[in-house]
């Protein structure tokens, strides 16, 4: 394994270890996701078909908001004690620092989704026998897109005072293509449509979004961290 990748995994392990001890972002994010999903189940009295028509939108609204709570901490957790300075001054390449943070945020958001998805299934009476595999693939791809773009903006605004406000303002417009693809494919799968035709174009959109923004973030991060 290259030195850079080893460094990235060391930073990801560090973030996950500190999050395990403090549970700051996972608790807030998971609580938010569960509360919204449960409340929505009582808020609207929908027929099965009506529910399936909005299922993808509901799930990805919840996940994208929960994701913002997690990615906001990606770089801001380095501010106490000027740890970010020490990271940047080290031989660790900027892309490795960023990749480590994105991996950690990805794992944390997956944990939140893993906790909330069964609740979603229970409260909305979802039958996912035939769609679980493709649904997991959609979730993994879309979650990576949210965390890579979110971590990049977390680095950009790390020294901004109102970063909790700025992050959603910057993040969500960029995520629109990803969210359209995630919502559309999830709605289609839960409605019983196969992974073919329009659904495949959603999948390609997710893969393309992830590839482009991962490459852009890895390249640009050096200019963001040192100026």
């Amino acid at each position, binding site marked *: 394994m290259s*030195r850079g990748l*080893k*460094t990235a995994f*060391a*930073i990801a392990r*560090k973030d996950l*270890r*500190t999050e395990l*001890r*403090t549970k700051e972002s996972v608790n807030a994010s998971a609580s938010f996701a569960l509360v919204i999903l449960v409340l929505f189940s009582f808020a609207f009295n929908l027929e099965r078909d009506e529910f399936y028509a909005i299922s993808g939108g509901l799930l990805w609204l919840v996940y994208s908001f929960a994701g913002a709570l997690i990615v906001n901490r990606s770089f801001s957790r380095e501010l*106490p*004690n*000027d*740890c970010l*300075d*020490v*990271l*940047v*001054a*080290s*031989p*660790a390449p900027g892309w490795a620092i960023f990749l480590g943070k994105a991996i950690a945020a990805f794992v944390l958001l997956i944990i939140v989704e893993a906790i909330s998805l069964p609740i979603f299934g229970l409260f909305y009476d979802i039958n996912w026998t035939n769609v679980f595999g493709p649904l997991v693939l959609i979730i993994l791809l879309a979650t990576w897109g949210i965390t890579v773009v979110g971590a990049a903006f977390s680095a950009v605004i790390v020294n901004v005072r109102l970063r909790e406000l700025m992050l959603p303002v910057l993040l969500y417009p960029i995520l629109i293509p990803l969210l359209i693809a995630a919502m559309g494919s999830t709605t289609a799968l839960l409605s019983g449509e196969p992974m073919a035709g329009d659904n495949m174009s959603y999948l390609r959109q997710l893969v393309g979004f992830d590839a482009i923004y991962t490459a852009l973030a890895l390249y640009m991060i050096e200019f963001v961290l*040192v*100026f």
Partner: protein
Amino acid sequence: MLAVEADRVWKYFGDYPALRGADLKVEKGSCLALLGRNGAGKTTFLRILANLSRPTKGEIRCSVGKNGIGYLGHGIGVYDDLSAMENLLLFGELMSVADPKKAAMEALDRVGLGRVKDGLAREFSRGMRQRLAVARAFLHRPEILLLDEPFTSLDDRAIAVLQALLKDALSSGATIVMSTHQIREAMELATDVALLERGKVVFAGPQTPEMVLDPGWLYRHYGESA
């Protein structure tokens, strides 16, 4: 042979020039005390040397890469939610130390934190956290040490530890660039002195007996009021 060379370095923050054509040469194996009043540009200069900031104009040349530089800034640079050992293992990994566990244990013993290696940094006293920061900066036996006001807020035990480590580093051939207001502590170690005034180096040269005997001598002769 030069360890660090700054060639007409300018740094602007917006319209404000924090550094104005700073020229400085630091010989390998020397200890440079970088003096100057608050706002003179010392921290800006050190941050550029540490690759934390880019000069707007001019160039900095270091004889070593990031691997050979140890940086101790205003913040202690340790993670509160990791133990002392976990902190040093992480930084050992980042600094490509050959045997991070052995190096971490030696560093902790040197600063007197060996017995509390598994304690979380947030549970340490202020002095212990500062000694951990010193251990971090010296972990990979850097060839160039960049220290920004290292004695500020240290207790006497931490000062003694740091001075011992700096003397060891100097005797091993390391180069030290240290900004400080504590002129007496700096003069005990410094071989060379530079005075920054409003972003310019107004004096750079070897330490003299007058500087040691009278800490204000340099400011009176080369500072703004001179």
